[in-house]
């Protein structure tokens, strides 16, 4: 029995692995990811998911609603970590799934799968807190560098974390990006994980400070040129769980219910039987009484 069988069981229980085991797991996943394409081809039936943000219990709720791996084939469109309390456990869970069934789960890169962003939004602090050093965080960042940028379902549905880039007009241009690196602060790669759709004419500077706002016209153009039916993306909270825009050419999928323990929103995943036959599955945050309360930990500042 490969060692990850045991890790798989641990990860299911909202637990994290010993440092050395997690490092080994990261290495196993890196070896798998390096073989994947910038735009990873995927076939229906498949279920597409949006941001997770360290909400472990809600990730399990997602699997209860969408089906367990390997029964269901999944595409996760990034932002597994940051903000929530269980980023490490959530990422470990996804990595063990990837190790066990590499062809039944596709993990894409979100703007939070980055060294710079995780140092600001919680994942780095979490690793420091849970391991007492930054080694695991560093290993996880190596995994992040190798995540695919996009997925293409049946050649017709383009899945990406953020959206489009003014520097990208064909899918082939994405295929030649050197993805094995920290997400740059500008340019095509950055835009793909940072941009947002908006009802504007073409392109506008994004208030996020990275990526662009892109309108229906440039979306239409991109889709026609690349013969796409639909763009699936995540990156923005949608209170209703999902939202179609631009004449149903683009859909935002949001999979973190009660985002930031504050928003009270419902979450969704999108189940594709075929490109045209798809249905959203909605789910709520797991109630308080089904979550475990950890012990109070001594924080170094207060010793």
């Amino acid at each position, binding site marked *: 029995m490969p060692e990850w069988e045991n890790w798989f069981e641990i990860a299911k229980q909202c637990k994290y692995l010993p440092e050395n085991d997690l490092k080994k797991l990261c290495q196993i996943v890196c070896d798998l990811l390096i073989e994947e394409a910038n735009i990873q081809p995927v076939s229906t039936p498949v279920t597409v998911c949006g941001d997770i943000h360290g909400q472990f219990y809600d990730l399990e709720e997602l699997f209860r609603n969408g089906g367990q791996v390997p029964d269901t084939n999944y595409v996760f469109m990034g932002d597994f970590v940051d903000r929530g309390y269980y980023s490490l456990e959530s990422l470990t869970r996804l990595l063990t799934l990837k190790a066990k069934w590499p062809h039944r789960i596709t993990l894409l890169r979100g703007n939070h799968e980055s060294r710079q962003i995780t140092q600001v939004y919680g994942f780095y602090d979490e690793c420091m807190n849970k391991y007492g050093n930054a080694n695991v965080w560093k290993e996880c960042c190596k995994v992040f560098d190798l995540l695919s940028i996009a997925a293409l379902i049946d050649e017709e549905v383009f899945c990406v974390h953020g959206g489009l880039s003014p520097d990208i007009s064909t899918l082939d241009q994405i295929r030649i990006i050197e993805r094995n690196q920290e997400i740059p602060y500008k340019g095509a790669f950055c835009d793909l994980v940072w941009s947002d759709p908006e009802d504007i004419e073409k392109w506008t500077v994004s208030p996020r400070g990275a990526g662009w706002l892109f309108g229906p016209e440039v979306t239409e153009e991109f889709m026609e040129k690349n013969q796409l039916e639909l763009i699936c993306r995540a990156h923005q909270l949608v209170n209703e769980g999902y939202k179609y825009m631009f004449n149903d050419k683009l859909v935002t999928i949001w999979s973190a219910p009660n985002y930031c*323990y504050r928003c009270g929103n419902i979450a969704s995943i999108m189940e594709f039987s075929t490109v045209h036959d798809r249905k959203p599955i909605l789910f709520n945050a797991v109630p308080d009484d089904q979550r475990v309360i950890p012990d109070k930990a001594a924080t170094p500042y207060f010793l």
Partner: protein
Amino acid sequence: MSTRSMRLSCSSSMHSIRSKANNMEFKTRVKNQSDMEVWEMSEAYNDYIGFISAMNKSVCAIPLNKPLSLSNESKLILNILNSIDNWITEVEPLKESCRFGNKAFSTFYNLLKTRLPDILSKELSLVDQQNVIELTTYIIDSFGNPTRIDYGTGHELSFCMFLCGLFKVNMLKQSDSKATVNILFSRYLEIVRKLQLRYQMEPAGSHGAWSLDDYQFVPFIWGSAQLIENPDLNPNLFVDEKCVQLFKSKYMFLGCIDFIMQVKKGLFHEHSNQLWNISGVPSWNKINEGLIKMYKKEVLGKFPIIQHVPFGNLFQFKQCAKKIMVPTPSTIITPTSTLLDKLKKTELSESNIVNK
């Protein structure tokens, strides 16, 4: 989801004004990580941390409901805050759902930008005009960012620099210390909470569940000082809802917990894990010391926050000449300016209060 900009620069338009008086250009100085060391050795840093510590001492064991007399100058600042509060009611949130917070906040921010300069230059007519300009910038930047519609500890820092600046220009005096925390800062908190709720402001640069709080830090420091030597309220009680309801108006710290409990859904240990851990610390004294250590590292030590802070005449970026030691948590740093020397004297004269 909306994430604080890495490259948007500071919002205020007045950051690059040259002071005629002493040629201190008023602008942001921290451009990269290596500038952070210069900041931590600067007079500005020393003065600021001295102010935080002096205010901290002044409210040791002084709850919010203890009657305080207000100087005319404090009243004047309070009136300005009251006006700002009234302006909020002038700007209705937009009905459409907005992704990055409610865009009506930028309308409110424009009111601050157009009205505050005149009010401050009128009310602070005796103060050097360059200093008034700097104070105005700090107070305008205290309420959030109009582009991203977010609010965080950087904006809170800006307000504390405004308050500290008022001491520096001798508008507020040592005798105003308690009121500065318990009345002025407390009023500010009411306003920013109102803004956060009304315009659904995003937490700026929050470390999520690993932050002390989505929006604030300083009220936890000063609030914990209020509870030092308090025999009735053990730290492990502050996560108890009943206890919070009972004491939220009396102690700033409990007021903060109450606000978290209002806006957060889910289990406390999960959404506010740092505070959950802090509730296990045995004494308020330890909490207070720990929070100051944490503030230095997690707020004042963070490039993404300090890169937005303008420095000039009031807060000078030059190296602190008198600084002889690395700041340690239990030490009140000797401030360089005369103001802070004065404040220090207050601390000494009031130290007996702590022991009561």
